[in-house]
């Protein structure tokens, strides 16, 4: 049977016009500017940059405005925009040891060289609603200051490393795989997993990480170090024959220290999980580090406990919220023809059943 495939243009146009009006909300209330979103909803902006996989705070703020605050919709807009950009090249690996740290804490060493720097954190707040913020007048909150420190803050893991107590990360200059250029192939490798998790859905990665803490894949993690701050991004400019810094970005880095039994070939030592994410996104960075560690079971000679967090096919195929929402939401779009065939089929089956078991149907 032929089902109408055209029509609805006027309804669609009108729906979009209404969407625009609803987005604006009550016009007696001042309109949000991109700058206001960028400056005052910066953690939402950071999430959209991380999962949109494009570092540009103004674009992320615009996407949040356009999507009425639906962050997955905003991430979708950023992903779509990202595909239109010509790729100029790849940067040198960022040197997080040179980070100008806003925050740097360790859960494993109280007296870590460089100190515990809390930064602008929600930790230790009482999670009570602050009604002062609801008041019209904006109290100018001035942060306290102290003598700025310029000395580099070394990575805490390096201290364990010098003693051989933790597994060494061996530098490797191989060009990493890029899942924005080539479809993901499984089994993957750590580089691909770290890219996939860095842009993965915060909620999904958090849930996976939490499952490892509750015992699905045993790798009890300590946050060896968490740092947030600005790092320069360097790139080789072929026309000039030297590298320059092409910009600066805020990153969150989490390194975990995990238990390891040792093996026939290696003495007992700690192992690592790692997460590096755009912006100030520490929940995400910690989650990535836990899931990264869980997915390394094979390389570290551990057994597969059958946990979801150890199954890279499961984790990597489902952590992308744009893929997920695309497939999920498409089922609300017209499926009239598909459904028509299902309908015909079920009617036919009922007819056949009625012919085969006429008494039973009568009994019902």
């Amino acid at each position, binding site marked *: 049977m032929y089902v109408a495939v055209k029509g609805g243009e006027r309804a669609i146009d009108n729906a979009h016009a209404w969407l625009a009006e609803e987005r604006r909300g009550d016009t007696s209330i001042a309109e949000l500017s991109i700058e206001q979103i960028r400056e005052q909803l910066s953690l939402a902006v950071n999430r959209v940059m991380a999962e949109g996989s494009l570092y*540009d705070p103004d674009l992320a703020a615009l996407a949040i405005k356009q999507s009425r605050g639906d962050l997955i919709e905003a991430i979708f807009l950023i992903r779509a925009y990202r595909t239109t950009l010509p790729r100029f090249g790849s940067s040198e690996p960022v040197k997080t040891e040179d980070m100008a740290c806003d925050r740097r804490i360790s859960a494993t060493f109280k007296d870590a060289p460089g100190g515990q720097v809390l930064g602008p954190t929600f930790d230790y707040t009482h999670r009570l609603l602050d009604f002062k913020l609801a008041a019209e007048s904006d109290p100018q909150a001035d942060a306290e200051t*102290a003598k700025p420190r310029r000395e580099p803050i070394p990575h805490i893991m390096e201290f364990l490393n010098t003693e051989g107590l933790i597994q060494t990360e061996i530098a490797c200059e191989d060009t990493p795989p890029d899942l924005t250029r080539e479809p993901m192939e499984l089994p993957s490798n750590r580089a691909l997993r770290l890219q996939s998790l860095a842009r993965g859905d915060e909620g999904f990665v958090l849930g996976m990480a939490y499952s490892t803490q509750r015992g699905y894949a045993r790798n009890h993690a300590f946050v060896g170090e968490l740092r947030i701050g600005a790092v320069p991004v360097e790139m080789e400019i072929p026309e000039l024959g030297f590298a320059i810094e092409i910009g600066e970005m805020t990153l969150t880095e989490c390194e975990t220290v995990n238990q390891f039994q040792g093996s026939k070939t290696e003495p007992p030592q700690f192992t690592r999980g*790692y997460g590096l994410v755009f912006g100030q996104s520490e929940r995400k960075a910690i989650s990535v580090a836990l899931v990264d560690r869980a997915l390394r079971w094979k390389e570290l000679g551990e057994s597969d406990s059958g946990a979801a967090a150890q199954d890279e096919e499961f984790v990597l195929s489902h952590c992308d919220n744009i893929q997920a929402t695309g497939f999920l939401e498409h089922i609300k779009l017209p499926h009239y023809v598909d459904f028509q065939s299902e309908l015909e089929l079920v009617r036919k089956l009922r007819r056949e059943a009625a012919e085969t078991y006429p008494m039973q149907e009568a009994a019902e």
Partner: protein
Amino acid sequence: MNKENPRQAWMSLLAKAPTHSLEDKMTAVGPEPEFKWLRHPELGGVMVQGRAGSTGGRFNIGEMTVTRCALQLASGEVGHAVVQGRSKSKARHAALVDALMQTPRANSLKAQVLDPLMTEMATSRDARAAKAAATKVDFFTMVRGED
């Protein structure tokens, strides 16, 4: 970064400079010199890499927006720019400074544009570092009354 090459240093500074700040300083410098485009300002993305465990194998974190261009002054010097963000005027200004820094006007450009930019950026970096320093934890040990 290691700034043995002064051109690396000024190009890096220009790439990271706030767009409006660079623009203000260029306006103060006076009318733009004559130039022709070798490469019109073009928006693009650069894939940013990290290292697993901060020292291990490379991996891709995500992209950043950049704008690049190249131009040539009437006097022959070629200026390049690759700057963060999506401002074509920022790229043009950065490439102009890069070209002019290779001319006899270098000293005045340094004094009017590069040095003030560097000071401004250092001030804002220090302001953040000062706030971070105030949140550094000072532990103290409680006297527990044991012998």
